[in-house]
């Protein structure tokens, strides 16, 4: 090589900048501590992916939260008339960023409680922090089992969303019941969420005598071609594929499956509903049957009608249910926000411990979007949704259609 990388360099060491550095730091710290704290609103935090490839999921959650907050505030707020204020921070789908964002919400913004996003790794990283500092953390999407089952006592982490361990049981049962499949090949995203489901599926496999796992393959978010992995599963004799991944790489999996001309049924976790799966996956998008907590298609209950109308009004791009992208994010967030608001109101304060206790002992029933919740949480169970709340669906065109 002719040129060697040589860095520009300076000639002399000088200590003068120490002074400037000190001054800068002083100003910085002054800025930190001067953060004002408005006392008349109740701050609710939200850490989610607002940029990056999963940004749409964050947007979907934001929509659900915003509509719910609008409704609550319009009805007079909580704790005797205090309005709810949403404070959002981006985690870029990166756990360390999520940790910093959560710290900022807890220590600087002093939120009463905060909600999570789609990325299980980020939520898993935040869990210990929430428990340490006694600030309730509500998951609305990330499904990794240990998020709520984290062995902390007391546990400040709640969830209105699916739980991997339960979803995994459902997926295997469905594959066997619907398609008569007996040999499952797993296609899992190579990240903590995939790993959580690998554990869950293996455990579910032990429980279920009708179906066995014959191969476990992983792939990366940016993989273009998954034919080699699929070929390995095919050779292992798989007669159904169990898919755990978000929409874009999930679509890559579907395209690879199409390309190799293998018409094997696909049963998927709900990640693939997080984006424009039909557009990304192309003609075979409908072959994948997947889990949802809610569908905006078909006959809606009162909450569904109300939410759809509010969404259409607030977001003009939404003309009908087909425009509600990542519907689970919006649906879970909507219900979670209402549950949280009721709990805070019932607790009578924004103290974390009080809110936790109030969530664990909710009185009466609340008619939500996904279902009617009565005592959604208890000390031993921090998941509001269970296997009976999951529905299996598939895409028909751009429409998510129940198949059960």
């Amino acid at each position, binding site marked *: 090589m002719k040129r060697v990388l040589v*860095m520009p360099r300076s000639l002399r060491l000088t200590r003068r900048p120490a002074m400037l550095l000190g001054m800068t730091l002083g100003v910085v710290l002054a800025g930190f501590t001067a953060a004002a704290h408005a006392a008349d609103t109740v701050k609710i935090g939200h850490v989610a992916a607002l940029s990056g490839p999963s940004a749409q999921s964050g947007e979907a959650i934001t929509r659900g939260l915003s509509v719910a907050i609008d409704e609550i505030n319009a009805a007079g707020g909580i704790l005797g008339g205090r309005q709810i204020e949403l404070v959002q921070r981006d985690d870029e789908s990166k756990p360390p960023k999520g940790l910093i964002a959560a710290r900022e919400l807890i220590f600087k913004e002093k939120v009463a409680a905060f909600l999570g996003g789609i990325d299980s790794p980020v939520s898993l990283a935040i869990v210990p922090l929430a428990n340490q500092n006694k600030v309730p953390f509500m998951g609305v999407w990330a499904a990794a089992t240990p998020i709520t089952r984290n062995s902390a006592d007391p546990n400040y982490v709640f969830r209105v969303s699916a739980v991997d361990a339960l979803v995994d049981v459902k997926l295997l049962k469905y594959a066997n019941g619907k398609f008569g499949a007996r040999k499952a090949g797993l296609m899992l995203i190579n990240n903590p969420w995939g790993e959580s489901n690998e554990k869950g599926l293996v455990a579910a496999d032990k429980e279920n005598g009708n179906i066995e796992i014959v191969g476990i393959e992983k792939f990366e978010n940016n993989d273009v071609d998954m034919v080699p992995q699929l070929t390995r599963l095919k050779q292992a004799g798989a007669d159904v594929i169990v898919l755990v991944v978000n929409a874009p790489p999930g679509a890559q999996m579907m395209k690879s499956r199409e390309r190799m001309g293998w018409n094997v049924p696909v049963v998927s976790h709900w990640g693939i509903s997080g984006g424009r799966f039909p557009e990304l996956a192309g003609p075979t998008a409908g072959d994948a049957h997947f889990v949802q907590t809610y569908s905006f298609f078909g006959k809606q209950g009162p909450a569904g009608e109300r939410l759809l109308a509010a969404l259409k009004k607030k977001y003009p791009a939404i003309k009908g249910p087909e425009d509600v992208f990542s519907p689970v994010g919006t649906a879970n967030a909507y219900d979670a926000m209402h549950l949280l608001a009721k709990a805070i109101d019932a607790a009578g304060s924004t103290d974390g411990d009080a809110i936790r206790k109030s969530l664990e002992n909710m009185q009466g029933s609340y008619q939500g979007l996904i279902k009617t919740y009565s005592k959604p949480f208890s000390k031993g169970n921090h998941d509001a949704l269970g296997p009976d709340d999951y529905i299996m669906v598939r895409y028909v065109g751009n429409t998510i259609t129940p198949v059960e």
Partner: protein
Amino acid sequence: MSLRALLLSAAVTALLVVAIFNANGYELYVLSLVGLTAIVGIGLNVLLGLTGQISLGQVGFYAIGAYTVGILTTNHGVSFWPALLLAAVVAAIAGVALSIPALRVRGPYLAMVTIAFAFVIEQSAAEWRGLTGGWNGLMGIPTPGLAEFSFAEREIALLVLFLTAAMTYLYARLSRSPWGKAMRAIRDSEVAGQSIGLNPMLVRTMAFALSALTAGVAGGVFASMSGFISPESFPFFESILFLLVVMIGGAERVLGPLVGAVIVVLLPEFLSALAEYRLLLVGALLLVVLRLAPGGIVGLLARPFEKPAAGTSPQSKRDIVEFLSSRRGGQTLSASRLRIAFGGVRAVDDVSFDARPGEVTSVIGPNGAGKTTVLNLIGGFYDPEQGSIRLGDRDVARLASHKVARAGIARTYQTTQLFEHMSVLDNVMIGLRQGRLGAGSLVRPDERPADLDLAESLLAFVGYDGALDQSAGALAHVDKRLVEIARALATHPSALLLDEPAAGLNAADTARLGELVRQMAELGLVVILVEHDMRLVMSVSDRVVVLDAGRKIADGTAAEVRADPVVVNAYLGEEQSSAKPRPAGSTATGGEVLSVSDLRAAYGAAPVLTDIDLHVDNGELVAVLGANGAGKSTLMRALSGLHRPVQGRVCLLGREIQNYAAHRIADAGVVLVPEGRQVFPELSVVDNIRLGAFCRSAPDLGNEVEAMLERFPRLRERRRQRAGLLSGGEQQMLALARGLIARPKLLMLDEPSLGLAPHLIQELYATLAELRDEGMTILLVDQMAGLALGVADRAFVLESGAIVHGGPAAEIRDQQGLEKAYLGELHGTAP
């Protein structure tokens, strides 16, 4: 450390301590993160700032440190402090391991190796589940503690503050220690570093190990601080941020990484309310800082405070005579039957000579004779294919060059190879170590009074009278030469090799240099001098070895060699030339094509051309003569636009072209056939010729190329061959053809006969005479004065960058001064 610096640091530290006691959990975490990022930056600064090597793999070491602490404290019950120590050790070992492939590669290759390393570490952390917890990572990593007391955010922030301050202090110490200086030396000139005995591999490996170690420490604290790590805590992007920390702050600066970390970590936090737009802003800001503050923020802020070098000039404080003559004296350096070939050409062929202590042995010869190659063989830069080199009883041939240097052979270089970004004093100080740095002196500043005195005395001895704290890159040309000699002497050598030390020096400086050379020999050193300045050679040499085309053609005293007709012929070329002078009566048609007035050019601070006035008329052939180093080639480069900027005026047919870039000058019709032919080696002969006509539209180029092949029949036979495979003579023909096809208004030739066999030179000059008679305007530079004068109408003689004679060719030829200008006067003292 000065008192003021101490007070300032104490003040800043106190301010931070106060801040830490007033901050909330989030602020403490962010502050700690700033500190940890700064620590990684400090380590990277050793690599990037001191040794000039890039690493995009720092996050890998950071991860190794974090996982070491995480695994040991979480799963094995080891307490934090021993775990942190082990993290540092493991990371350092990884650094040394990575340096094995990393040191074999440079530039973008090095960047790639480190990128790949970062990916391998990240992926391994994800896949080695039994150890690392896989993608779920390690949770519940205990915080550090002392006895029963467990650290909370505040104590951790204090710990990080302490570590950051300690690392900054250690970096400041390191950068002034022998190791730090050796790192800078290797960065500025690896070759020169080796020639003072430094082992570049060792120095770079140390830098890698240190940078890995600091990253490991920071990673270890990070694991404990965040309580949770997973592969996603260490994405590749983090490596880019670490690099940014150093570059934005200011590479090599002590405070650079601190300022960089403050910006890189805090900025996104301040922008956190902007959430999704902040990456955009960070990217844009980065671009702005890189553009506007090339030395980093610290460089920018420090600039107004930087004092110009104002130190005193060196005083002789130690007895240099005693120092230099105390070395195991009296060892003869003998080269025997040396041979080396490059690409089939024997650059040095069966050369033997002895150089005795107390004598100046000069190696001379025309350009391309193999003189510098002989020095490179002795200095260990090349391994001879055959032959031996002995210093006293020891065979030093085929030793690595830093070992040759340690054995007692020091050298200087044709183009000075100083450590340009170090001070004059440090250049000599690092030479004093003779390559032995010592593990104990890693953070001990290299400031022993005895050494400082010695270095200063050496500088005084060689006659350097500038400031000691002057940066070497900013020195005047002559001072660079002197400092380089002082540095060589600092290694306490038995033998000193000087490669064209007088090149570019004026007569007075050359004379002083001559005295210095004699003085050094009289102290009992073996002095080997390669030099073009014959006046110098003839006046100082006890013995002269003459090389031509790689072979020794003469060996004897200066007087013997001076009188040897073989030598004279080798230098001046055959007088009788088959090229005819211009037929009487047919003079040039007149009209100025090129006129040059007050032209000045310099390399850096060193002036090379001063006040050149010359003109070339239409149809004339004008020769520029002069010894090597007189500035002939620079003149050609200045006229053709390759050397910029120049002062003065250069007019082509009345149009000023001194500010034109080279391609526009070519387009304007001034075509240079450069020294060394410079054909495009991978292109065919025909393609080379066709490129000559690049600037003009030539609808009938095929036929024109044919016409060229007519003129140069040798090229016709090889028209489809790659030009790199042609012989020297054929390449010269090709270069000429390539120049001619441009239909130049002025054709310039730089040393066309260089390295050609005599019959080819005849052929070439016959062609030049032909062109002249066809009416081509030609400006010719050639060392073969006899030949050039044979075909020229007029000639100028250049000496030390100025025109000393000018007139009709016949007049110049008859002057006795010419031979003197080339071969020098015997034992004449220069004015």
